[in-house]
């Protein structure tokens, strides 16, 4: 054992380039349990504690024990090891490689090295692991020689985890089947008791659990409640400069990330939006800038997350309140790893709950998709390939992939992939409604806990640690509550708030025209075509604001739900937006989306707008059948189906001229798409949709 320890210590010192370095509490114990006793180990340690040191050294020692043959498999949602980790591994003489969907061009090289047994540690994503092609091409070759399995971000295994991923369910099943002579290391930085218990059950009773303190001494926490977005924008503009170094401003949605960044840019700050809609190279460039303190902040969604390691990150501000303590703690835990002090501010606002509610509601894919695919498979004796499913079911490739991935993750799974075909497996299946209810209730409880945190009158760090069941929880002595005074002033000045309102009021949103029908069949308007022909398409339109925002959003909401009347301010705002925009060819008349439920609300507004613009208002679209509210419809197919045959255009002599098509709140955009097509069919040369507000609640 002494020789094993000596060897491990030598590796550590080589890796850290510090001849006097010693193991942190628990690191050697974990290595020993894995290497000497082939045990299963769960490490709950905060990021930066050195979990990678444990798996690098354990991987190396296991391989040395085995005559320098075999490798460790690291399953991680990260795309790659961090550069500093790879460098450390290199110094230990450890050869680590990554295989994921974005580096297919390197697969051959990695494969060759795998087959010649030159790799110590292979990193694959859970998605890759579930991929049949990858399994056949790469994994099957090396799987017989895997000496240790490492499951990173192991909280994803747990149903109770905040970040549950379908592909991790498969990992849980593999762990259940894994014989006990293969050591397993599961690691996570954030797991409360329930999650730890869940992981323990997956790993077996014998698992060695190690749980370290989560608190990060450098964080100085403060919560500031500023209901309107304009106030929060003003706060950022006023105080961003006082925050130390470079940092991250988190928002809940992509649209908010874009807006907040744009506002701060107009105020002269060097900030950029960062979210999942950006191309990978752009994201990498932005990360690089932040890493090197070349920007004040990135305004980011959760897309900037796991694996981003900047030890000197000076601050994290949340523009909106996240959905759970675990999410929140993970995000703020990125700050101040190597600093004495980092400033953490949670700004809470009035829209927080609406956004979180939406995420909770849409967390599971529509059951209609699942049923459509299962029923197609049931009717196909020889199974179906993805292309064949596409032909049989009116769903996009993405939707089909999503359903198949979800179904494959079920235990047991009703679908089985055999070669290129999917067949139904002979197992009973029904959607686990109980599980969906349970998880939804859990998300609600997490949301409530964050609401309480926002109002907490005890030490903020203590609150978070207790929520995470940290046995080492204690008051921090440096948060705004412990100090009894703010760390950053909560004040905003009236003038900047007014400017923010003006900014929001000038931030109209483009409405991109739809180019494809969601389905070929079952709709009279699309005549068996998937593509919406140029001759039936709408032009690019505009929405005055985001639903509920602090610019016009508040007035729109009040008009729709309280007054039953859209104020003249909105008419003026819209008219001004049209003048700023001045689309070509200039519309010559105005019409609007009819409603049987609220027959006057939109026409009345459209009429006043037409007057303001000096154009004739011609309500030539009629609703001939009542439809269910569009927001109740589950997917594009149902949304359009709901509208099929609901409207009728009554031609008039000026119908061929370009037209503004007015609606109040745009959700999916299908109503505008369908009516624009009907108008174009009736002869209109160009249809410009304009709306008061757009619902955008997309995270990522």
């Amino acid at each position: 054992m002494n020789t094993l320890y000596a060897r491990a210590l030598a590796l550590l010192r080589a890796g850290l380039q510090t001849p006097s370095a010693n193991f942190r509490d628990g690191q050697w114990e974990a290595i020993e349990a894995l290497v000497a006793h082939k045990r299963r180990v769960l490490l709950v340690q905060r990021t930066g504690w050195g979990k990678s040191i444990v798996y690098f050294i354990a991987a190396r020692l296991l391989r040395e024990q085995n005559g320098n043959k075999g490798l460790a498999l690291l399953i991680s949602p990260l795309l790659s090891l961090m550069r500093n980790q790879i460098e450390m591994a290199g110094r230990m003489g450890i050869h680590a490689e990554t295989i994921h969907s974005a580096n297919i061009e390197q697969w051959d090289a990695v494969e060759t090295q795998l087959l010649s047994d030159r790799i110590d540690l292979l990193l694959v994503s859970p998605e890759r692991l579930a991929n049949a092609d990858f399994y056949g091409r790469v994994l099957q070759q090396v799987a017989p020689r895997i000496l240790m399995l490492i499951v990173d971000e192991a909280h994803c295994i747990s149903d109770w985890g905040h970040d549950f991923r379908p592909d991790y369910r498969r990992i849980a099943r593999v762990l259940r089947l894994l014989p006990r002579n293969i050591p397993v290391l599961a690691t996570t930085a954030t797991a409360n008791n329930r999650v730890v218990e869940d992981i323990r059950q997956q790993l077996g009773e014998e698992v060695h659990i190690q749980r370290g303190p989560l608190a990060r001494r450098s964080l100085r926490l403060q919560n500031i409640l500023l209901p309107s977005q304009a106030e929060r924008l003003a706060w950022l503009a006023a105080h961003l400069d006082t925050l130390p170094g470079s940092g991250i401003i988190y928002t809940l949605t992509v649209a908010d990330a874009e807006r907040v960044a744009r506002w701060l840019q107009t105020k002269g700050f060097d900030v950029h939006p960062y979210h999942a809609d950006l191309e990978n190279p752009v994201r990498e460039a932005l990360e690089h800038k932040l890493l090197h303190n070349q920007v004040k902040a990135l305004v980011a969604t959760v897309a900037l997350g796991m694996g981003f390691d900047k030890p000197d990150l000076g601050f994290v501000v949340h523009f909106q309140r996240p959905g759970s303590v675990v999410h929140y703690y993970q995000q703020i835990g990125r700050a101040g790893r190597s600093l004495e002090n980092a400033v953490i501010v949670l700004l809470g606002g009035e829209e927080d709950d609406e956004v979180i509610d939406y995420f909770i509601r849409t967390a599971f894919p529509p059951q209609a998709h699942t049923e459509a695919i299962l029923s197609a498979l049931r009717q196909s004796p020889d199974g179906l390939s993805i292309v064949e499913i596409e032909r049989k079911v009116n769903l996009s490739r993405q939707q089909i992939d999503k359903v198949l991935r979800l179904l494959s993750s079920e235990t047991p799974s009703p679908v089985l992939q055999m070669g290129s075909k999917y067949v139904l497996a002979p197992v009973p299946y029904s959607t686990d409604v109980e599980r969906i209810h349970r998880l939804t209730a859990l998300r609600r409880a997490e949301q409530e806990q964050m609401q309480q945190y926002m109002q907490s009158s005890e030490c903020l760090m203590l609150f978070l640690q207790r929520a995470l069941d940290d046995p080492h929880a204690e008051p921090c002595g440096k948060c705004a509550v412990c100090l009894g005074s703010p760390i950053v002033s909560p004040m905003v000045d009236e003038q900047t708030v007014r400017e923010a309102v003006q900014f929001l009021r000038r931030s109209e949103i483009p409405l991109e025209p739809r180019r494809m029908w969601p389905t070929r069949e079952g709709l009279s308007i699309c005549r068996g075509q998937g593509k919406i022909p140029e001759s039936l398409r709408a032009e690019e339109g505009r929405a005055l604001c985001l639903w509920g925002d602090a610019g016009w959003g508040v007035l729109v909401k009040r008009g729709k739900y309280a007054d039953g009347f859209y104020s003249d301010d909105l008419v003026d705002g819209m008219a001004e937006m049209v003048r700023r925009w001045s689309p070509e060819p200039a519309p010559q008349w105005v019409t609007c989306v009819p409603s049987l439920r609220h027959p006057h609300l939109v026409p009345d507004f459209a009429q006043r707008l037409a007057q303001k613009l000096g154009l004739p208002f011609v309500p030539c679209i009629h609703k001939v059948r009542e439809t269910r509210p569009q927001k109740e419809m589950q997917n594009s197919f149902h949304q359009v189906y709901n509208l099929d045959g609901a409207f009728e255009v009554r031609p008039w002599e000026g119908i061929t001229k370009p037209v503004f098509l007015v609606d109040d709140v745009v959700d999916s955009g299908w109503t505008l798409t369908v009516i624009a097509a009907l108008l174009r069919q009736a002869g209109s040369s160009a249809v410009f949709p304009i709306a008061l507000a757009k619902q955008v609640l997309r995270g990522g």
Partner: protein
Amino acid sequence: MYALQPNTQVATLLCAHTGNDPIQPLSQSEYVRLVDWLQDRGYSPEVLLSPDVYLLLLEGEEQTKLSAERVKALLERGTQVALWMEKWSNAGMWIASWEDAEYPAVLHEKLRKQAPVLLYGFGNPSLLQQGGLAIVGSRHASENLLESARRVANRCAQQSWVVISGGAKGVDRAAMLGALEEGGTCVGVLAADLARIATSYTLRDYLLSDKLCLISPYHPQSGFTAGNAMGRNKIIYALAEFALVIACETGKGGTWAGAKENLQNRWTPLFVMVGEEAPEDNLVLLGLGARAFPTRIEGPLRGQLLSLMQSAQAGQIALPIEV
């Protein structure tokens, strides 16, 4: 969630073919040698999962005639086997080895060391414990003979007696569907393609309603070989209380060989279809110790066959023979 007993885990690591096996899994006889050697030392197979197993294997090398390197490498392929097993178990497949409760005891009793180390299965495993009538015959039987097979299977179904079939085309298939379509239960012992057949359109619903159990001693995607077909015949006979040959050709084909093997090993009493529609070759089996299947089924078939057995003369009971 599906899990395996440690002993079954060991049997799977050592013997399962997963479609890509750089190291040759142990054959039946190799596994038997290893397990016997362990047993002599008071160990059950699960001892092979302990960390210092290599020394133990070296110690046994001489007697087991198994390279310790090879066995160790097989024992280390746990991740691969778990990944492979996950795919199939999550589609409803289970594995039973000698030590499992689902593994039918009659196979041990009748086949002893020839009892397959692993059984791969889909559907209701309790059907394996219920005896039943094996109905066998060639792949290329006449429509009349297929009808006979179906009719007998129908009667079994009506009398809640399990039908055991080889699951191949022809007579096997007719017997299986004859039982299932009548609402009865059936065990299909397959020589190949377990996964494909278990997911087939016609059989899926029967598996789901627990009326059918499909098993094979071969991995779920193995292809057909004559050797595999013969290997699985013994399981059909060993599971059954009685066996019925619908049609065979003297000296040719799997049915003949299987029936002969059964008579030699006395796994289960053998009946053959006789009468106008039955091929003359069937009569040859009568000379070798089989009995004529009743031309009319009166009352419970199981009782009828049992009383035919009891009334039989000592001289008619089959003796080991050479043909």
